[in-house]
């Protein structure tokens, strides 16, 4: 499985600590993010660790279309992270607002509020897609470092 070997390489170089934040999503993507951490997909064996606080995180994994109520909190979490920091938008809502695009209480996607490094579409995004996206993000950073 080439995805797995890429993740192993990546994890050896860098163990990203991630923080997961739901900006008003229906929870489907959030469950798939957490499912990526459980036995079948088990991203933790690759050193990807779910952290509770922004100050220790390298990667902010966001779901949801960003409701007005949560917007300032999202900004604040991003501000509290130290550089270098990356944002992954998980799910079609996080990418563009998804089916909720045009709804009155929606900003319309993560990049309307903070800069996004990687977009992982899907409704919801599957655990495999999430892992694939995370790997691609870190591979691109590997490239930059060269």
């Amino acid at each position, binding site marked *: 499985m080439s995805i797995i070997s890429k993740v192993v390489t990546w994890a050896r170089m860098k163990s990203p600590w991630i923080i997961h934040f739901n900006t008003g999503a229906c929870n489907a993507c959030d469950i798939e993010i957490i499912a990526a951490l459980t036995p079948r997909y088990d991203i933790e064996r690759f050193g990807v660790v779910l952290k509770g606080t922004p100050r220790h995180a390298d990667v902010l994994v966001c779901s949801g279309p960003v409701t*007005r*109520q949560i917007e300032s909190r999202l900004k604040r979490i991003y501000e509290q992270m130290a550089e270098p920091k990356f944002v992954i938008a998980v799910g079609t809502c996080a990418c563009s607002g998804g089916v909720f695009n045009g709804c*009155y*209480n929606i900003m319309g996607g993560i990049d309307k509020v903070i800069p996004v490094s990687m977009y992982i579409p899907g409704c919801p995004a599957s655990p495999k897609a999430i892992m694939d996206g995370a790997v691609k993000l870190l591979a691109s950073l590997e490239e930059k470092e060269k």
Partner: protein
Amino acid sequence: MKAEESIKLDLMKKFAIAEDKIRVTRARRLFVELAHADFEKVFVYAKDTLKFGHLVSITGFDEADKLAFMYHMAHDNGVVLNLRFSVSKESPVIHSMTKYFPGADIYERELVDLFGAKVEGLAEGNRYPLTDEWPRNEHPLLKDWKPADKKERAA
């Protein structure tokens, strides 16, 4: 539909409601149109005497120059009794039913935020579901309220 028909006749007789104001749309569903002045006593009768002991929710409606409110009450046997009345938009004052159903609290707050209802007797508390920054005179579920306006104003 014997149970539903007998509830209909009972309400008609007890509260002098016209027959065309009570519809049995199918098994286990009654829809009743009331005058605002009659609402509370019918509501209490439905709860205490007819044993519609579960308030499922309260739905608000924008009806041009009026606001209407429908209270969905369920019985253990599955029958849902829907009581509706309307008030003028100029003076959309209704009374809180939290003294009978504490759970009505969150449904009434929704009517305040989304329709501009004024609920007398509703305790102090957080608004729901809109943010504190959302202007108090903007009610998104009114038919003439447009999301595009809101986005421009926020920008």
